[in-house]
């Protein structure tokens, strides 16, 4: 392994490849900030550049840099404007945006940068050590377990909505799943629930929905009830994190790097599920007092998804590099690029082209370091976005939500849908319905149905639920997650009413 490391270091530290990492990270960060362009589309745009370079190591290094940069840039718009451009950073807006509203935008971005750095670096370390062994574990996960894993993720999200809210969160999750079934499913090639409208044939756009659920209601609330984004004095204060906060997030980062990485390794799971599960897990294991902080600007709540999504991005390279199976859309595009460059990822990659394998891993370390070094000094300037006067900022937020929905699809109907959903989302927000579960349900819906359908076909019915112990275990956890909070609330209420506890 040492030999491999040195080969990788030698390749990654060449001037050309260092420039590639820096360039990739910069491009990724800046384009990732534009809502509507996620890592997948940015990488797709960069592919012609990468292929024309002709050197597979350099190409992969460039694309990996773009990938990291895009994930980091995406969290910036989640935190500052509540406009997550990438599914993986939706969870970062839960606590990042409240922090920004309290005038701690600088601190939130710092926490995000540090958490991303730690997640990415620890992920790369794990990749180095575990890559060959993990590929066989990833193959143990069948569609049934993926399905169950997603059910767990969704229930965890409904459960963390808090007491008295579980039913609302569940309804919103289900509504998200229902919306995901509109359009043509991959397994059936049948348009479903389109009501004969051509524009619904391909389903609702994720970005459209994300903008309509988060950014648009937020902007409308800002219009309805003017208040300062920047806290009271309009100053960006508290840029640095205190020692106490560092101590609070350190274990979170540790746990989430591991968890995120292992979720990322599973093909199909990826950064999105990792970040949601990371958020849910951290919220559920936090002490009661800190649990109430989640969703209102908790440092832990921001650090958890940021660490997890970066670690998962690294983890998703494991199946790509060792099995040749892309675990996510982004790695699928990377696979395409690699094949175009005459490199076949798979079990032979480490033997045939060790310099590519190790150079990618080394460039992950370098890329993460460069992201941190580039971003920490830039944070005060990025955070200054919020000091733009309200009269200019709001039209720009509206414009970026519209652009985000438009660029991806190049379809003006998408904009009308955006406004329509935005109005519905605002009404739901008035009535205190949580909007995040809807979006999460929508994102996971298609994946979940495909895995469900596949396991139904493999087992010719629903028997996979009890024939696979791991599936049964995961589903049991999901039920406990949903039932437990309402049971606890009921008991707390009963105790309040003076009913004796029967124990």
């Amino acid at each position, binding site marked *: 392994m040492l030999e491999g490391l040195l080969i990788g270091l030698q390749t990654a530290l060449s001037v050309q490849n260092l420039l590639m990492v820096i360039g990739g990270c910069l491009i990724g960060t800046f*384009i990732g900030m534009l809502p509507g362009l996620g890592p997948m589309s940015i990488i797709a745009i960069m592919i012609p550049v990468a292929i024309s370079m002709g050197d597979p190591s350099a190409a992969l290094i460039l694309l990996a840099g773009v990938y990291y940069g895009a994930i980091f840039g995406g969290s910036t718009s989640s935190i500052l404007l509540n406009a997550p451009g990438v599914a993986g950073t939706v969870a970062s807006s839960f606590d990042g945006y409240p922090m920004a509203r309290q005038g701690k935008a600088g601190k939130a971005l710092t926490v995000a940068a540090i958490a991303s750095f730690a997640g990415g670096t620890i992920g790369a370390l794990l990749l180095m050590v575990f890559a060959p062994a993990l590929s066989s574990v990833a193959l143990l996960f069948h569609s049934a377990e993926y399905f169950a894993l997603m059910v767990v993720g969704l229930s965890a999200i409904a459960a963390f909505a808090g007491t008295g809210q579980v039913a609302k969160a569940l309804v919103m999750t*289900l509504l998200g799943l229902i919306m995901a079934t509109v359009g043509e499913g991959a397994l059936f090639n049948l348009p479903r*629930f389109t009501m004969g409208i051509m524009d619904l044939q391909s389903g609702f756009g994720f970005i459209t929905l994300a903008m309509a659920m988060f950014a648009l209601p937020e902007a409308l*609330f800002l219009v*309805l009830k003017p208040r300062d984004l920047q806290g009271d004095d309009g100053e960006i204060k508290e840029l640095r994190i205190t020692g106490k906060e560092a101590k609070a997030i350190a274990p979170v980062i540790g746990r989430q790097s591991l968890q995120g990485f292992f979720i990322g390794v599973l093909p199909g799971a990826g950064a999105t599920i990792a970040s949601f599960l990371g958020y849910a897990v951290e919220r559920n294991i936090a002490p009661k007092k800190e649990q109430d902080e989640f969703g209102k600007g908790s440092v832990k709540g921001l650090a958890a998804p940021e660490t997890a999504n970066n670690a998962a991005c690294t983890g998703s390279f494991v199946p790509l590099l060792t099995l040749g199976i892309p675990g996510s859309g982004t790695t699928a595009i990377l696979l395409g690029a690699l094949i175009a460059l005459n490199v076949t990822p798979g079990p032979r990659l480490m033997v045939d082209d060790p310099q590519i394998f190790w150079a990618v891993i080394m460039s992950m370390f370098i890329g993460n370091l460069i992201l941190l070094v580039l971003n920490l000094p830039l944070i005060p300037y990025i955070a200054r976005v919020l000091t733009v006067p309200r009269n200019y900022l709001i039209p720009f937020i509206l414009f970026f939500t519209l652009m985000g929905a438009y660029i991806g699809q190049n379809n003006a109907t998408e*904009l*009308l849908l955006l*406004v329509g959903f935005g109005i519905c989302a605002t009404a739901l927000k*008035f*009535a205190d319905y949580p909007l995040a579960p809807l979006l999460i349900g929508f994102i996971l819906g298609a994946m979940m149905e495909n895995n469900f359908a596949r396991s139904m076909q493999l087992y010719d019915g629903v028997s996979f639920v009890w024939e696979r112990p791991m599936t049964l275990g995961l589903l049991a956890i999901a039920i406990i997650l949903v039932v437990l909070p309402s049971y606890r609330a009921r008991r707390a209420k009963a105790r309040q009413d003076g009913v004796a506890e029967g124990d």
Partner: protein
Amino acid sequence: MALDRWLALVLLGICLAYGYAAWFTMDAGLAPFMKRNPIWPSTFPKVLSVLGIIAALVILLGFEKAAPKEADIDYRRLGEYNLGQALLLLALMVVYALCLRPLGFLISTSALLFLGSFILGERKWHIMLPVALIAAVSVWYLVQVVLGIYMRPLPGILGG
């Protein structure tokens, strides 16, 4: 009845309509060979519709008591907020969606940014106009020229 329960009623209606489509109308068009499949296109929606109806009923019938908490905006006194501005901005977005193709990106976007700040009460023309124009042109340049995603810049009659 509070707004959240009204909305639950609406959601229940959506779930019922969805369930009706899934249970009764969807399977009619299914090809015979697909009927031998353990999973039909309507299987997953059927499950979802049942769960959705149950969850909506739980809210509607008030099984789960939530502690009333201070909302950011009280919808019962919506008229006291800047409702007019919000509605105008929404209308502006709809107009933008309809004009984007026929008028081209540059004109519609500058108009959106300019009118948006105008609706919000900004009257400093010498700042509003240049900001709107520069933003529109630079975003167009970035998306069209740098990223290579086509967006019609000018009205169709001008050959854009």
